[in-house]
């Protein structure tokens, strides 16, 4: 499966871009060789213009774009690393760290979407790697039928990042 890019604008005039492309940076070569013909896709979300808060229609559009990956490719899996650098617009300094905020937001979006659409065969793994004063979040979305490959990826991240 080739990646794809969607650009969309909100009612407030903000412009965002979501892109899906093959992800090769997060896993070890050994893990990649063990997942067979799985297409591991990464997601990057870019705010091109504007600083307004994201509305539910934007979140819904992102959910549909993710869903499209699974519709287009029967052996797709999605892995992404929550951004910790770009601040969340209109939040106070004492709010939770941006990466945790994004991880919780994306988890809630997944929960809501599978409930709304009554999807039973897609799963999410939330992988958290923490040190003394910092925490990083990965998400892995996969079909039930790829649970074994998801386990390989989960273990690779867990072992690779706990050394």
């Amino acid at each position, binding site marked *: 499966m080739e990646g794809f*890019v*969607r*650009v*969309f*604008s*909100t*009612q407030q005039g903000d*412009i965002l*871009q979501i892109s899906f492309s093959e992800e090769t*940076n*997060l896993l070890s070569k050994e893990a990649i060789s063990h997942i067979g013909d799985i297409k591991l896709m990464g997601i*990057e979300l*870019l705010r*091109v*213009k504007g600083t307004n808060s994201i509305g539910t*229609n*934007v979140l819904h*559009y992102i959910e549909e774009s993710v869903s499209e990956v699974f519709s287009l490719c029967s052996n797709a899996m999605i892995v992404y*690393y929550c*951004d*910790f*650098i*770009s601040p969340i617009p209109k939040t106070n300094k004492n709010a939770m760290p941006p990466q945790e905020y994004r991880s919780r937001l994306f*988890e809630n979006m*997944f*929960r809501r979407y*599978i409930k709304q659409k009554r999807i*039973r065969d*897609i*799963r*999410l*793994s*939330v*992988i*958290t*790697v*923490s*040190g003394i004063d*910092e925490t*990083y979040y990965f998400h892995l979305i996969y079909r039930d039928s790829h649970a074994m490959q998801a386990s390989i990826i*989960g273990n690779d*991240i*867990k072992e690779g*990042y*706990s*050394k």
Partner: protein
Amino acid sequence: MAQIEYITVKNATRSTLNRLRQIGIEKAKRLQLMKERWEQHCYDNVEVVHL
């Protein structure tokens, strides 16, 4: 089996955390580069979906 599972790695080493931070920084640089291309109108012909 739950549809959401949680895998946690605690007490990651300094080198691991540095590597993760580096991944995030590289991602931010890629996105910044893309944003600059937008500002230089390199993507003017891209179709924009209006929500």
